[in-house]
Every structure is written in C-alpha cells, then in structure tokens.
C-alpha cells in the first residue's frame, strides 16, 4: 500500500497481472505478475523464430485495462 506524501490518501494498486506472448496466434509464453515488479516493467524472454510471422504481446492489468501490440518477424537469413 502506498500513500500520497502530501494528502495521505491511499494510492490504489495498479499493476500488470497477466502477460501473453504469442507467435501467429499461438501462445508460447504466459506470465502471471504481482506488485513486486518495478514501475515501468521490463520483461524479456527468448523465442526461436523458424518462419515468417507475427509476434503478439498482450497484457491485462488489475484495473481491467488491456493492451495488445503486434510486430512482424522473420528468421535471420543464413
């Protein structure tokens, strides 16, 4: 619980709860996250790209907000 330093009001908790990483609509990594993650969160995972496709990252936070971002990727040419 955090309080506003000047007014003393309790600032409601606001954090990401679920994160999903998917490739062409198929999820490969899912995360459950709690308050102990820093402000402006940063997450990094590995994924082996074998063909052209789209990577989608979406999240849901504890206040019901949702956001999805998609980016095209292709395997590195040998």
């Amino acid at each position, binding site marked *: 619980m955090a309080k506003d330093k000047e007014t003393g009001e309790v600032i409601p908790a606001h954090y990401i709860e679920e994160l999903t990483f998917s490739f062409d609509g198929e999820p*490969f*990594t*899912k*995360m459950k996250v*709690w308050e*102990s*993650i820093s402000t402006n969160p940063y*997450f990094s995972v*590995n*994924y082996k790209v074998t063909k052209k496709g789209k990577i989608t990252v979406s999240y849901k936070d504890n206040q019901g907000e949702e956001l999805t971002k998609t980016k095209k990727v292709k395997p590195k040419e040998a």
Partner: protein
Amino acid sequence: MKRRDFIRSFMVASAALSVSTPTMLLAKEEKQNKTPKGPNDMPLEEAIKVITDGKEVKQSDKIKLTVPEIAENGAVVPVKVEVDHPMEEKSYVKAIHILNSKNSNARCADVMLSPANAKAYFSTRVKLAETQDIVALIALSDGSFIKASKSVKVQEWQKIKRQERLFLHTILRS
C-alpha cells in the same frame, strides 16, 4: 501504611514504568505498522508450497541467477534467470517463478515457458522493500522442482530515517 505494603506498591509502579520504555514502544509501533495487509500478501514458504503443491525442492547449480549484490535503489533491481536445461518436447523447463523472502507478497512473477522458447531465459526488474533473498524456483516438465537463491543488499537510508523519527517520537511522548 505498613512498610511491606509500601515496598509492594513501589514494585508495581516500577513494573509499570518498565513496560513503557522507548525501545518497547518502538517495537510495538513497528509491529502495528506491519499489520495492514494487501489482498495478495503471502510469505515465502507458503508461496513455495502453493507452487510446488508440497513437493520437494532441490537446490541446484544448473540455475544461473544474476542479481546485483548491492542495490542502491530497491525500487529497480534487475533479475536475470538462465537455466542450463534442454528445451525439447520431451524435457523442458515448464515455468520460472521469481520470489522474494521479505516483501509482503513473496511472489514477483510466474513465467510459463514452452519448448518454442528454445532457451530457458527470463529477465525483469523487481522492487525490494529491504535487504533480502531472491529465489528462482524452476518447474521442470517431469514434475520436479529446483531452486536457487541469492541475497540482495538494499541501501536502507529511508528506513533508517523512519526509525530515527519513530524513536524521537517515543522519547517526546514518554
């Protein structure tokens, strides 16, 4: 008044005095400060029990847990976990759980991986309230669990200031 009674009353008074020494008041106040709890509060042992369902957890050096030894800012502590384990259909790392030992909620993040990740790797930044241990609990696809932990020292300037303030407060009041 008899002499015996006088001594007895004196002893009662001194006992009452010793109850309210500043140090004890300080301890009491700290206890009170800890009481408000959030909906997710969970100590470390309980969190591990929830994740593993009571199964045995082995310490393992297959896990490479990278955290700073001393964190100047407890609000941003980088954590990196790598597991030296194959990522194939038959045998892979199912999940990486990052836990802490002294925040009010021991759970930081649960990462469910799949063989498509090709490498059991996860990194993030966590908030730590005080000097404590970071625990990486790894679930393998065969149902077993391994873990590794490292301690992070958090510079506690703010906490010291708070304790000084509390101490002054109790002295002024007594």
